[in-house]
């Protein structure tokens, strides 16, 4: 249940402003791919185009193709709602629904598909998803309590549980640990390592150590200057990017000389 993503010549615009230029990248199924780069280089914007979440912003549009196992996400007649149910997303700040209990948060996405689900099936899914997110033992006695009562790290894992409950093909993570403390970060990183057995994971991070720890391949994005579009500079095995990059800009960035 995981698919690969192939991006061909993708340009992303906000209105007339070209935000990300000419990205082509092949993301393997059942792997963790990290996007790194300085702030404003378009890596989050690009990540959002992988499940059409950029369309939430007024004026955002793309040119090019994003293929999910060969099917173009931007093909005619493709519904962004369907795309997003196949490609889940975890955000920078944990965002469980405050008005829902922990249990309802996990089931939120599943209920959208109007599946008639017996209580037993729902309970099993809640347990499976929370276990998948390494959260079950911490919350199993308070499933009916609000999700907003959990710690930040627990909330983020609840969001991951909510994302995997709908059994997506791909999980996108937009700086999932930047609002978390080191212990919670470790818990989420461990989880990412386990998730790649079943899912294709793409993660944007500002933390280069994190990229080095969790990812199989790393893509480095950079921007030539303010007002210029972000570009994909280099995409390779994570060990290559960090130890033996082919581009000067990548080497400068990973060795901390700028950014």
């Amino acid at each position: 249940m995981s698919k690969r993503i192939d991006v061909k010549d993708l340009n992303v615009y906000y209105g007339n402003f070209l935000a990300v230029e000419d990205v082509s990248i092949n993301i393997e199924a059942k792997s963790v791919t990290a996007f790194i780069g300085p702030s404003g280089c378009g890596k989050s914007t690009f990540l959002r185009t992988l499940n059409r979440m950029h369309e939430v912003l007024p004026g955002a549009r793309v040119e090019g193709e994003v293929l999910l196992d060969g099917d173009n996400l931007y093909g005619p007649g493709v519904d962004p709602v369907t795309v997003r149910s196949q490609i889940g997303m975890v955000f920078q700040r944990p965002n469980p629904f405050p008005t829902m209990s922990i249990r309802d948060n996990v089931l939120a996405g599943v209920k959208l598909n109007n599946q008639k689900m017996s209580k037993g099936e729902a309970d099993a899914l809640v347990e499976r998803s929370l276990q998948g997110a390494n959260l079950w033992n911490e919350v199993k006695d308070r499933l009916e309590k609000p999700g907003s009562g959990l710690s930040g790290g627990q909330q983020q894992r609840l969001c991951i549980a909510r994302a995997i409950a709908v059994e997506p093909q791909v999980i996108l993570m937009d700086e999932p640990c930047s609002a978390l403390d080191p212990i919670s970060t470790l818990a989420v990183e461990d989880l990412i390592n386990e998730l790649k057995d079943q899912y294709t994971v793409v993660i944007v991070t500002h933390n280069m150590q994190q990229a080095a720890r969790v990812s199989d391949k790393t893509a480095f994005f950079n921007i030539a200057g303010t007002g210029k579009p972000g570009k994909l500079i280099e995409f390779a095995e994570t060990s290559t990017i960090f130890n033996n990059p082919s581009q000067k800009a990548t080497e400068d960035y990973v060795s901390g000389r700028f950014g």
Partner: protein
Amino acid sequence: MTTTSLTSSRGAGRAGDKVFSGATLAAGCLILAVLFGVALFLVIQAIPALTAPAADIQGGKGFFAYIWPIVVGTLIAAVIALVIATPIAIGVALFISHYAPRRLASGLGYVVDLLAAIPSVIYGAWGAAFLAKEIAPAYDWLAANMGWLPIFHGPASATGKTILTAGIVLSVMVLPIITSLSREIFLQTPKLHEEAALALGATRWEMIKMAVLPFARPGIISAVMLGLGRALGETMAVALVLSSGALTASLIQSGNQTIAAEIALNFPEASGLKVSTLIAAGLVLFVITLAVNMVARWIISRHKEFSGAN
């Protein structure tokens, strides 16, 4: 070398602090004093009516017999207004906040706010002179086809000046209040939660059901309660539109009366015990409004844990 002592203080800054905190305290106390003063006035002035022998009260059967039909009439008019206005207001607010293109949304929001700026006497005149006449045939139809329902029992009023017409006029009056408050709340829904819903594969309507409406629920209740307060207390429009009379179940016959209109219509010529009776009616209206607000607060607080405020 000079040292600044911890005990010396900048005189001016501290004084400003004290003045400001004193001013806010005074403002807070003033509100309580006004509320208490009004309540005290109502109770003292109402006592003669509440203690007078039954035969002396208008109608000759005591204060309770006098007040309960107009309490019921007030509630009927207010409920009609809310039943009509709430769904429309929420729909309009959602359209403005989440569906309409930005330019249309700001224009529409402005027009809705304009509705609130129209004086109630104008609404009353419009209701009495235009709406009542135009809507009378509809009442005839209701009486003929749905007359088996007690609320549409015929014969319908030929003038159209009924409690239903009054309720419809009231609904137009409370619409802008509920709409603009709901719109503000809808716009405050955290983007984070909207995106969470969309990222799960929710359609726009599902996102609204999942993120916007639950978040806005306490706000919608407050907005409806404010609208209810206006509908309960509205005087002029009802006084002009309604051809009042005894309490009747049928909404399309003339009859019924609201407390506020009853007071307004009778107060100028009242004297003695009659004044006291009307003020007692005002006290009852005050108590109803207070009770409505307390119930609303209770409903909101019941779900505090899930409100997202924590």
